[in-house]
């Protein structure tokens, strides 16, 4: 869903779509937005106004939607892997304690905790939060973040059958503990690797070629020398906008949302 955009300043009705039409494109040199003059001089404030400020916010809305979905999925994946690591780590701690103890019930409890891991981890891996993806399916998936140069490769582990993976071959409890510990060390390392991959993907999206590059198309890097008159003109426009927003109740439109969180304690 795109946001309805209405320019409240008469001069600034040019959208990015309009700028792409050749008859409206000013005769300017190459720059991120074509607003830099061939002479290499910085455009004046008035040039900036007449050639149009970035008003293509319908596109920004799409960026938000796309990024929210992708970034959100990555974050949830990282959180899920962290939860799994927590469970596996706790079980490992219990096994280590049991390994050095002669207490048979302690050993039994530790092995029981290990035995519950497949079900607990499976619940996390198949959570609806991951939108049909399993954190532990044997899949290598490449997600390309739309309209950026960032490809995020999501690599999942090979534990398609957790019960089989966690099954212990040893019969003696002491040997089972050793076997379980060895397995958990490898499992935790796998989770760490996958978390690292998701984190790298996350950082790539946040990095220069990801969202910042995408938003540079929507918010062009305008290098404008503002004169004192320009600043005063902007200030006047801001004051006028302030009045229009007050009359339109712009803050009131946000008030209902502020009642849904702790800000309500400040009303």
């Amino acid at each position: 869903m795109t946001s309805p955009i209405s320019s409240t300043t008469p001069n600034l009705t040019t959208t990015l779509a309009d700028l792409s039409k050749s008859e409206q494109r000013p005769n300017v040199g190459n720059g991120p937005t074509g607003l830099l003059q061939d002479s290499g001089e910085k455009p004046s404030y008035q040039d900036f106004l007449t050639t149009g400020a970035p008003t293509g916010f319908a596109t920004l809305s799409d960026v938000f939607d796309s990024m929210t979905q992708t970034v959100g999925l990555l974050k949830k994946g990282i959180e899920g892997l962290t939860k799994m690591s927590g469970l596996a780590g706790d079980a490992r701690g219990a096994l280590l304690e049991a390994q050095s103890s002669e207490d048979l019930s302690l050993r039994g409890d530790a092995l029981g905790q290990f035995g519950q891991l497949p079900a607990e981890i499976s619940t996390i891996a198949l959570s609806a939060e991951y939108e049909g993806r399993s954190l532990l399916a044997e899949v290598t998936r490449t997600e390309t973040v739309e309209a950026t140069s960032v490809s995020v490769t999501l690599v999942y582990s090979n534990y398609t059958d957790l019960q089989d993976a966690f099954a212990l071959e040893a019969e003696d409890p002491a040997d089972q503990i050793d076997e379980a510990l060895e397995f958990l060390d490898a499992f935790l390392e796998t989770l760490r690797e996958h978390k690292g991959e998701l984190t790298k993907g996350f950082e790539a999206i946040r990095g220069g070629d990801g969202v910042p590059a995408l938003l540079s198309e929507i918010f062009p890097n305008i290098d404008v020398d503002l004169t004192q008159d320009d600043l005063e003109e902007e200030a006047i426009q801001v004051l006028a906008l302030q009045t229009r927003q007050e009359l339109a109740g712009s803050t009131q439109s946000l008030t209902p949302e502020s009642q849904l969180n702790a800000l309500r304690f400040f009303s």
Partner: protein
Amino acid sequence: MALKVELKPGERIIIGESLIRNDNQRTRLFIEGSAPILREKDILRPDSADTPAKRIYLAVQLMYLSGSIDRVKDQYLQLISDLIGAAPSTTPIIKEVSTYLATDEFYKALKAAKKLIEYEGMLLDHVQSSGAGLPNDGQAG
């Protein structure tokens, strides 16, 4: 790693969906987890959002507290569209705010929005110091 926060006597802080009010002594809190945290000095009440930049800050604050841009995304887009229309020189800061919002870095977006308020204040100071105001015909823009 826990975040250390020191509260002055009587100071309030929002943590998640709760408001914590300190008693009459300085207190040190160690906060772990990912719940949003807002100290009283960083909280903008809706009735105090009386300028375009403050309204944008309020929108970003709401996103931070809810952990999502969805609910106020449209209002945010309209507010930044209006402010850039009025003052194009705010574009770089608004781009910074929007970049952080797009990548789920809400607290950084809030800090950038605070810069926007400061910049707006600087702009408005120009009007006050130069004596400029609305044109004599009373028309805005």
